[in-house]
């Protein structure tokens, strides 16, 4: 057990620039997909909550398809499925993008989390109290200003607790990355387990590390809720 830790602690934790550790890859996957997913989700949520059907319906179809299929299948489809098509491989740009396992994984994770986040944010936008909007309109706000100053700040605040769940779930979902050969934390644990045949120790270390990240995320959201949902206290 000591030998396993001695040989693998670097691969679990810090790694080298050429071979980043499992922890770094897992954190990077989580942050990148959540960041990109958030940027996608905000405009999509506005569209989804819109009363204009040509805006709302395409987004509804997107979230329906993504939320209706398992992330594992989406990842396999993007990683193995798309790249087996000649059309993809013969286009220089697509070939360059999909050849890299990391790109495929981030894309799959981003599309997935964006769909769930869109639903969370759209729900919050729709439940914005009528009074706030009427008051804003009475002050002469409309369109972009109304969204920027009144609806979005209020909706994103109210969405915080639900969004924090999505963030934790996304962290846990990154364990699928090893399917697409991305060497995340779980992959390092698998290596350690098959090298020393000590699965309890190897996966136990991974579990503790995931627990630490989850704990840090929960703590960050606590701080955020403390600050932005202060009116609920």
């Amino acid at each position, binding site marked *: 057990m000591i030998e396993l830790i001695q040989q693998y602690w670097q691969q679990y934790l810090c790694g080298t620039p050429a071979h980043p550790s499992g922890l770094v890859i897992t954190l990077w996957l989580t942050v990148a997909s959540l960041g990109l997913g958030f940027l996608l989700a905000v405009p999509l949520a506005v569209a989804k909550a819109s009363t204009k059907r040509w805006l709302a319906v395409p987004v509804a179809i997107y979230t329906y398809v993504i939320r209706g299929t398992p992330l594992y299948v989406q990842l396999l489809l993007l990683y*193995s499925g798309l*790249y*087996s098509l000649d059309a993809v*491989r013969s286009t220089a740009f697509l070939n360059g993008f999909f*050849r890299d*396992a990391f790109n495929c994984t981030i894309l799959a994770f981003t599309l997935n989390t964006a769909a769930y986040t869109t639903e969370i944010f759209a729900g919050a936008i729709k439940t914005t109290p009528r009074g706030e909007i009427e008051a804003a309109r009475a002050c002469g706000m409309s369109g972009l200003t109304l969204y920027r100053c009144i609806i979005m700040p209020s909706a994103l605040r109210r969405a915080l607790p639900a969004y924090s769940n999505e963030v934790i779930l996304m962290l846990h979902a990154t364990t699928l990355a*090893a*399917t697409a*050969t991305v*060497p995340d934390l779980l*992959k390092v644990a*698998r*290596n350690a*387990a*098959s090298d020393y*045949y000590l*699965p309890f120790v190897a996966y136990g270390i991974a579990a503790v590390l995931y627990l630490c990240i989850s704990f840090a995320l929960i703590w960050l959201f606590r701080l955020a809720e403390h600050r932005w949902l202060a009116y609920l206290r």
Partner: protein
Amino acid sequence: MLAVLFALLVAASPYVLAKDWKVIRFGVDPSYPPFESKAADGSLVGFDIDLGNALCAKLNAKCVWVENDFDGMIPALQARKIDAVLSDMSVTEKRRQQIDFTDRTSFSPTRMVAKAGSNLQPTADSLRGKNIGVEQGTIQETYAKTYFEPKGANVVSYQNQDQVYADLKSGRLDASLQDEVQANFGFLKTPEAKGFEFCGPELNDTKILGSAAAIGLRKGDSDLKNALNKALAELLKDGTYRTIAKKYFDFNIYGD
């Protein structure tokens, strides 16, 4: 009530049943034809499957095949989820420290596959900057990580062998490292492997690659080891082994 439950549990526990070896649970990773794979109807087929069933027949035991990822085979054995590993597992020093092995069941070396005309060789210099695919937990993974990766090759591990060939075909991988016989029958002789061939010689390295494949057993199950060894010797003697081998190979898979 509790006593009844306890009695049932004891009676149902594989440990008790397994003591007189009326049932032998073999662990197998069926992504490795012709040794083990799945037929279109979902049943297990291959050389190891036939050999295992023949061994069970000799021992008057019932064979139960348990599908397992290759890298989880030894933990599953130690956790008593299976009684033996019959999945073209090579005998190596490292594995010997954890588990016991029967006499050898087959012999086939490790060899690299790449695109025809790529001129790649299974050496660290030739593979610098290239992507090499291996299956997670195999001796080939250890070999590639020990000799190729430190010199700048990119070793990519897959959960099973099918995925290695899929990415070799799609061009994500420049080469793949695996059992020679498996590569020949499981990939190169199939129509989808057009344009691929063996590159370089068979690899020899008794420390990492070991010498031959055998059935993996828990240390301490010496009664099962003796029984399997005896049955294996009888199969070799009465020609059953040769009949099974002929179905899959056109050369001597047992080695010299």
